[in-house]
């Protein structure tokens, strides 16, 4: 396996006050994988993504995107923040939000025009939301909000995508639609990193994973590192639901257990 390194994190340490949130994390994400970052609450999953995007102050360490510092590679990195991070009562329309993904490419002062509107509509089509283009964003359900955020990342036309819990609080239909979209992105050669909460679906949705609990416990192909041993190291004693043999055939009603209820 001799692939290019899409993301390389070296010695990354982040602390809020005196409490370390990430401790000496070294992580390499090869180009073209669909990766889940998993770990318990407070493990620093969101912080890891934000540190890669230079949204939080790091105490130590550095981040490279295809061998260059993030500040030089901004244009090829797309970001899907947590749905709850914005006020959905903001007076704007679905299409306007999606067009925001082009603001970086537009640069200062220039306003989005027909080209940007067309790109936004195409992206909305991809996430099955073209009917809602003119809708006010406060009238969307959780799953629809999530799709709008995905469409906004799609118009960025990036190489590397970082997504913070895109499955949070969406219905089953939307979850399937999002998974399909992520797999299409991987098929197109993009690298996708997703903060994920539902352990049961990791082997089904992803081919690469990183287990995180302040320190990086393990990272690599799901088939190699998504083991009971590593999960216990990550979650402590709290993974009683994942017994041998159940991994690939958990009963339908247990698929929801995961860590979601917390």
């Amino acid at each position: 396996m001799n692939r290019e390194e899409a993301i390389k994190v070296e010695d990354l340490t982040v602390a809020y006050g005196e409490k370390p949130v990430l401790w000496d994390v070294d992580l390499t994400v090869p180009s073209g994988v669909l990766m889940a970052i998993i770990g318990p609450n407070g493990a620093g999953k969101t912080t890891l993504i934000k540190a890669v995007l230079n949204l939080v102050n790091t105490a130590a360490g550095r981040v490279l995107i295809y061998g260059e510092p993030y500040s030089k590679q901004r244009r090829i990195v797309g970001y899907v923040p947590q749905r709850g991070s914005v006020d959905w009562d903001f007076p704007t329309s679905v299409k306007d939000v999606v067009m925001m993904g082009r603001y970086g490419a537009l640069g200062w002062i220039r306003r989005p025009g027909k080209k940007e509107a067309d790109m936004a509509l195409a992206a909305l089509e991809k996430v099955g939301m073209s009917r809602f283009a003119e809708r006010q964003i406060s009238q969307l359900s959780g799953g629809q909000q999530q799709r709008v955020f995905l469409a906004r990342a799609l118009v960025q036309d990036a190489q590397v995508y970082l997504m913070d819990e895109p499955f949070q609080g969406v219905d089953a239909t939307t979850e399937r639609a999002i998974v399909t979209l992520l797999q299409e992105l991987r098929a197109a050669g993009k690298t996708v990193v997703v903060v994920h909460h539902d352990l049961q679906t990791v082997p089904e949705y992803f081919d690469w994973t990183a287990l995180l609990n302040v320190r990086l416990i393990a990272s690599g192909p799901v088939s190699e590192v998504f083991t009971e041993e590593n999960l216990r190291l990550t979650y402590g004693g709290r993974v009683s639901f994942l017994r041998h043999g159940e991994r690939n055939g958990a009963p339908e009603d247990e698929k929801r257990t995961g860590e979601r209820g917390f």
Partner: protein
Amino acid sequence: MKRGPEKGASDVDFPQIFSDLFLDYTLRTVALGSAVIGIVSGALGSYAVLRKQSLLGDAMSHAALPGIALAFLLTGSKMPLVLIIGAALAGWIATLLIISIVNSTRVKYDTALGMVLSVFFGFGLVLLTIIQKRPDATQAGLDKFLFGQAAALLERDVVTMGILGASAILITMLLWKEFKLLSFDPDFASTLGFPVRVLDVLLTTLIVIAIVLGLQTVGVVLMSAMIVAPAASARQWTDNLGVMIVLSSLFGALAGISGAVLSASVTRLPTGPTIVVCVSAIVIFSMLLAPRRGILWRFFRERRQRGRLRLEGILEDLYSLALEHKDPEHAHSLSVLRLMSAGKGGVERSLEILSERGLVRAVSPGEWALTRAGIEEAERAQGERGGGQDER
């Protein structure tokens, strides 16, 4: 304007005020100045409200008082520009202080805001008292900054305000998409490469400018109303940021002009409170009557909804009773229907409405049955409810 501009001697006061607006120097100056204040604070206030910084405006305007007093003490000048610069600097320092308190201590945002506001304002009041105790008469009028005095506006003040305000609005127009993104999703703006800190400081500075422009006229105590109220009212009427900002400016101008003109025509009426009374009227009107978001609109929609549900409920009750009897048009007594819609009341009234629509008919006194149209309606309603679990 049928009457035209000629001034009849027997005219009552109201048209008099209108003609004065164009002919009377003081009134014209006051109206123009207040319009500028309303437009600028309405536009910039929209951003403050959308970014949930309404209270920051309050802190900034209160904190401006010691700046005004110190500017006077240091320069001995009462030139509005000098005082405005002092006010802006003090407002600025207060804002920075709030931000650094929140960042470096465990004190929460609202507490930091309250502390800085009251400390600065208190200090400002002390300085004002000291100034007023000075033997010379030069200090006269500085206390007008508390509640504002529209009549004190001069033409050159209005020109200064106009230039400053126009520049502020021009910047928001140039950086339209940047400020929009900053207000909606600053983290995302940062990942796109926009210097969020710089934009944040710039927008906050523009809000400070909007505030200090109005201090002389509206006063430090109530200026925050001009930042918050027009924007909050405008938000009620539209879901489009551009429309909201234009509306907010119009509301601000309307409140500013009417308040300032009123206070300038009636002697010793402080301008700030008068303007706030006017803007409050706009707020109340918008909160009550705006379509979709207004309280009255919501009230009637809910009532209509409840009424519709009650009628459907009775139709369905009759339908399920009829099903049990294998005769869709079987008649049932009122008392049974009352039991089924346990305690909700109004069954008779609902039946009357339904019979007016031809959905039910009274077979005999107290006995009701579905009509053919009623059966169809009940089936349709049930179908809708069964399949109505779509996404919101």
